């Protein structure tokens, strides 16, 4: 399997605060990698650095062999980032929004059309795509956002808390889509503080706390290693809460 993402000793400071203290992990194609930890652990910061919107204070990030610090423009063509609780442009329809983002990702009209069709399929919003995004429920907005994030079929989809605040049905549908995309070859890096969700979704999990990765492995490995019923228990044990 091809290595998609390589994060080596990543560091990030906000003033005097060390938000990320030397984080390292790898992600391969077809893989869903879950970054789990409590609020303020540094998950979103790691994701934002990989998404090229925050700079790093140390370490290296390679995407398909390209150095993020040297080739951020090239990297932006290979990734897609879904921020936590992101909204769409309120006065654009769902369709307008997908069209707009497709045109941002490629100048090729044919490809734009392909992206749009895939986005429409993933969002599964049907005729509601013709309505303005401000009329959407939280679940619909999230589906639209996820569709936008994956419609360009990026090498790596970076999803920050993809099901945060969603009801059971919408959460289930989003998880199903993420699984399907990974099966089709996409690498997914997702963050969540919902450990049960990550356990269900991810092949590999990194547990982050106070800017450091405390443990990494498949959910089964971690549970066996720490003699726990689920990832929540694992986290409590390794973080000494």
């Amino acid at each position, binding site marked *: 399997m091809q290595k998609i993402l390589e994060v080596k000793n990543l560091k990030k400071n906000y003033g005097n605060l060390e938000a990320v203290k030397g984080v390292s992990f790898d992600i391969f194609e077809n893989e869903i990698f879950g970054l789990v930890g409590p609020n303020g652990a540094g998950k979103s910061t790691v994701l934002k650095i990989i998404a090229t919107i925050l700079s790093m204070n140390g370490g290296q990030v390679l995407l398909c062999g390209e150095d993020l610090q040297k080739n951020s423009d090239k990297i932006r063509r290979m990734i897609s980032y879904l921020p936590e*609780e992101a909204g769409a442009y309120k006065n654009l329809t769902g369709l307008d929004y997908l069209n707009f983002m497709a045109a941002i990702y490629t100048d090729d009209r044919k490809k734009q059309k392909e992206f749009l069709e895939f986005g429409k399929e993933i969002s599964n919003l049907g005729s509601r795509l013709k309505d303005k995004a401000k009329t959407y429920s939280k679940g619909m907005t999230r589906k639209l956002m996820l569709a936008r994030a994956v419609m360009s079929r990026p090498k790596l989809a970076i999803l920050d808390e993809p099901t945060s605040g969603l009801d059971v049905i919408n959460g289930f549908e989003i998880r199903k889509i993420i699984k399907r995309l990974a099966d089709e070859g996409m690498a997914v890096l997702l963050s969540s503080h919902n450990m049960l969700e990550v356990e269900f979704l991810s092949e590999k999990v990194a547990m982050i706390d106070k800017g450091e990765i405390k443990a990494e492995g498949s959910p089964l490995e971690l549970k066996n290693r720490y003699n726990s019923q689920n990832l929540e228990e694992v986290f409590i044990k390794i973080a000494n809460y």
Partner: protein
Amino acid sequence: MNKFFVLVKKEIKELITIEMILPLIIMVVMFASIGNLLSSETKKMATPQALWIINEDGSSSANEAIEELKKAKYEIVLFNQKIEPVLKEAKQKNISGVLVFSPGFGQGIEKFEVQKIKLYSIVSNFSLISSIKSQGTMTAIGVVNRHFLDEWLKNKNINIKADDLIQPVGLEEYVVIGDKQAKIPLAQAMNFITKQTTLIPIILFMVIILAAQMVAMSVANEKENKTLETLLSSPVDRKTIVFAKLFSAGLVAILFSGVYMIGFNYYINGISGGALSSPAGQDIGQVMSDLGVSFGIGSYALLGISLFFGILVALAIAIILGILVESVKSVQAVTTPLMILVLLPYFLIMFLDINTVSSAIKYLLYAIPFSHPFLAAQKIITHDYLFIIYGIVYQAFIFLIFVIIAAKIFSSDKVFTLRLGKKKSEIKN
């Protein structure tokens, strides 16, 4: 370039909403209606004014006075009743005043004794139009006075006109602008210039504030909705994002201001219709053109360029201010200093003579980039084109500085970490 237009299209779709258009249409219709109403009221006032008179005296002098008023284009209605029923009827018919020639009026005039005419001014409201109408009635007294003064002078064998006696020294006014001069009253020249330039500061203020708020709101909205994070992680140049925002907000602001301008134009023409009109027989436009005060295409183009750079500076500052806020609710507060920077030169230039103020105030004004469009409107009149061009170059320089700062912020973490009133360490991680 393609992505720039994709972004511009998105920005314009976000900016032009029904919530934005509706108040604009209402405002324009309202101003146009007020303007039309005032204009028609002004026209009505120009028509012969009705004047009700009770002639209790009936002397030849009173009749002469009434004839003089008729000659002065007053529509006279005579009554032989007591004042109360006449006033009642006048109120019903919206007549502004009733004159009463009391018994003994004619006898007194013949004896060269000062007489009094009773004037009942009927106040039904306190509007400007009502006040102007009352002044029209007062003017009638002047007509009567001049007539009897002429009569008294004739009877005393003094060969002089009443007007000349009252004002023995006349005024022949010349206005000098630059090296040109013309025979025209100063008030009329100033009125002409005011009419030509009244809209400039209003439009300037409106466009700058509107554009600044739009762009600041757009950035704040993107931050709040996290669409900015999505956009900045996508394959589009950050500078293109900044320029697309500036261009779209500027374009929409100019468009909206154009519509406002049409409404204001109706309004200003309505309120100034009478006051700024040229006296009969004199082509003020031609006289002013002879003076070199002609607002041709070149003048308006220079003004337009100065205004355009004023808008660009405001936009570049506003985009930075938009980055500093966490939510759209704070946009109004954060753009207030910018509004003050626009208002300050507006008022200073309106009330002060820039040539006589202290050097400190003068240079302060010159340093504010928004002063230059206001100053340009004045400098065009005095043909100081070099000053206007220097002003434009200065504005372009200031714009460049702020746009570089904005682009640098957008290309760094600061677009997410810069904020007002919170420490950087409070950022969510």
